[in-house]
């Protein structure tokens, strides 16, 4: 399949956000470079820059990994340090690709890339199989709510196009996905280096009749962010900004999620609990009959009630919970380790609140996918902790709603983002051990 550069997506087709994950040197950046190159979306000057960077570092031919390794330190070391975002458009949709780093010490950056992904592309070296870091990444992606895996069995040229190598990767990936509660898995035999089955079907894999990587991405379900939460359709609107109208009156600005908001809807304003009714839903372009998930809107309510930034307007049916204390699954990013008593700030929806760790309760063993007792979370650990917050938060369990179920942890002194949290216990469909 060959497309003109920057080909226009068809009207109405959505964005697909995907993250490439997997271990260092398994070929993530090369795959993205190949995808851009073979869809003709690399410009001539970019290609020339990649070729000259390759020559300067003594690489034979063109190293397509230099397409996304955009930092000097990355090209020096031949590794990916931080997420690179790249964009591919086909006549079917626009893709936002987060090329994530493979090294353990950059797990925070991988989580950044995967947190908004609809789908994870898991790149595996078919000569080596799934590595520990591949399992860690896939586990983090699953915890973050990614429910579709496209497994790329890469470096198939080095296996002599051995079907058994592909099948082994596929079997291993499926076994892992099952343990992680992911039911949508497909595996493509690929050579990112040579381009087989990335955009163009390969003549080297007559035993494979599935889609290429690009074809699989074009068919993948999009819009994880837009999906209805809590039984399908209970809307939430975290208030970002109170718009004061020049002629008097106020409206409340924010992005709808979890369901659809319509004029006439019964709502509750949390954490206060006041009930009201929506009188209008508007965008900058005028009033709407309804506003679906992912749309930035302003709404008006029929009572003059006190609503501020940080409050949440929710459908009166299935509202979220107001909590001062809750358990969460935490990805911890930095030194010193997270321990009980630590004071932090938490940013949740549009509210920032002081928080304290009541207890660290468990740590996830990435190899066994079991939770074991722990009193501290080291950098790049995933575990379970209990938090107390100084201002009540309006939360859903993360697996029900990614927006109201997520938060980040902020260091009080440096303001750095030091951890990420998901309300509730880790949601992995893990079989009981023993």
């Amino acid at each position: 399949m060959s497309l003109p550069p920057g080909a226009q997506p068809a009207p109405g087709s959505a964005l697909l956000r995907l993250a490439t994950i997997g271990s260092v040197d398994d070929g993530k950046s090369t795959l993205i470079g190949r995808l851009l190159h073979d869809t003709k979306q690399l410009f001539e000057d970019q290609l020339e820059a990649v070729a000259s960077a390759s020559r300067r570092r003594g690489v034979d031919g063109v190293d397509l990994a230099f397409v996304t390794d955009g930092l000097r330190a990355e090209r020096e070391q031949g590794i990916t340090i931080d997420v690179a975002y790249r964009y591919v458009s086909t006549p079917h949709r626009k893709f936002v690709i987060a090329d994530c780093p493979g090294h353990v010490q950059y797990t925070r950056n991988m989580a950044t890339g995967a947190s908004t992904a609809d789908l994870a592309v898991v790149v595996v070296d078919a000569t080596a199989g799934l590595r520990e870091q591949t399992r860690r990444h896939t586990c983090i992606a699953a915890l973050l709510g990614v429910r579709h895996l496209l497994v790329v069995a890469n470096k198939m040229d080095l296996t002599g196009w051995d079907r058994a190598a592909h099948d082994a990767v596929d079997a291993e990936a499926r076994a892992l996905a099952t343990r992680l509660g992911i039911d949508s898995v497909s595996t493509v035999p690929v050579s990112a280096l040579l381009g087989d089955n990335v955009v163009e079907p390969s003549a080297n894999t007559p035993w494979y009749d599935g889609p290429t990587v690009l074809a699989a991405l074009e068919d993948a379900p999009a819009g994880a962010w837009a999906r209805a939460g809590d039984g399908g359709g209970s809307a939430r609107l975290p208030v970002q900004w109170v718009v004061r109208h020049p002629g008097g009156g106020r409206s409340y600005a924010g992005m709808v999620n979890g369901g659809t908001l319509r004029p006439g809807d019964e709502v509750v304003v949390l954490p206060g609990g006041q009930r009201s009714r929506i009188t209008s839903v508007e965008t900058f372009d005028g009033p709407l009959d309804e506003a679906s998930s992912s749309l930035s809107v302003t709404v008006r309510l029929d009572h003059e009630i006190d609503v501020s930034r940080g409050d949440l307007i929710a459908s009166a049916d299935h509202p979220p919970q107001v909590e001062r204390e809750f358990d969460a699954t935490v990805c911890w990013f930095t030194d010193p380790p997270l321990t009980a008593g630590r004071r932090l700030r938490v940013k949740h929806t549009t509210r920032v609140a002081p928080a304290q760790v009541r207890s660290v309760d468990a740590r996830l063993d990435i190899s066994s996918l079991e939770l074991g007792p722990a009193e501290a979370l080291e950098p790049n650990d995933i575990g379970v902790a209990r938090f107390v917050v100084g201002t009540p938060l309006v939360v859903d369990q993360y697996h029900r709603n990614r927006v109201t179920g997520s938060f980040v942890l902020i260091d009080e002194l440096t303001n750095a983002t030091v951890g990420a949290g998901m309300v509730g216990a880790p949601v992995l469909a893990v079989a009981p051990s023993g």
Partner: protein
Amino acid sequence: MDTAALRSTQHGPVADRAGGSVTALVRPVEHPLGHLDLLESLAIFIIREVAAESERPVLLFSGGKDSAVLLHLASKAFRPARIPFPVLHVDTGHNFPEVLAYRDAQVEAEGARLLVAKVQDSIDQGRVPDPGPVASRNRLQTTTLLDAINANGFDAAFGGARRDEDKARAKERVLSFRDSFGQWDPKRQRPELWQLYQGSVRPGEHLRAFPLSDWTELDIWQYIRRERIELPSIYYAHEREVVERDGMLLALSDWVSPEPGEDVHKEMVRFRTVGDATCTGAVRSEARTVDEVIAEVALARVSERGATRADDRFSESAMEDRKREGYF
């Protein structure tokens, strides 16, 4: 907390799954919004978030197409109220006159307050060396920008930069932290998960906010068409006197004169980007309308900056090096 919590999820989410509610996250829903709607909605979300969390935000406006889209989005984000922050133009002094006229008209139409920080003032005050009247002042803008940010106490600056422009930009967060020297440290960026844009800074530090991060050049033009956003006329094909220099077409102006041996000729050209007139090249083009520009952009074989910015051709890390110093 039960340390067997992971296993206990058997009767947490798995029970949910049997009950049908956890499938909420799993079930694909046809998205009713197009890609421009989603890009617009997220950009407006980011603008509102940064405006709410910072004390003194400012919007950087060059008069180029990306900052025109940014100003339009800022206007939409707070309508029917006015944009609650000022607009700052870092003026190299090497302007296309059409762009200055456009800047003043747009800012007035939005009812926003315009601040102008002049590179010439930085030169006169000895803050930067005088490169001479005709040399590019692109890199000098960094000092002028950082001085303006410090003098006004701005703690957040919106910019129209896009990740598809350059490989270093492709690495940058939507909210990009700058230390008290204005520096970007690409190895120590804040994790930025979900849509939780975390903008806390200490006095003297600031943020750059890039609501157009995920937009491509083509998205920008499609949005300009959809929203009927007016642009400076130089973005559309017109006849102009140019010289060919370093493989770029430079427009003759007060600062660009033909060098010995250079042939001055008239060409139909347009500008793909607008920057310092001494280092912004024109491209040969017949595209006089938005539709014609979109058709041209869709077929372009050279990137926007590669075609038009001499400053990005110095080295493979030109943009990264400038950004580390505090550039846009």
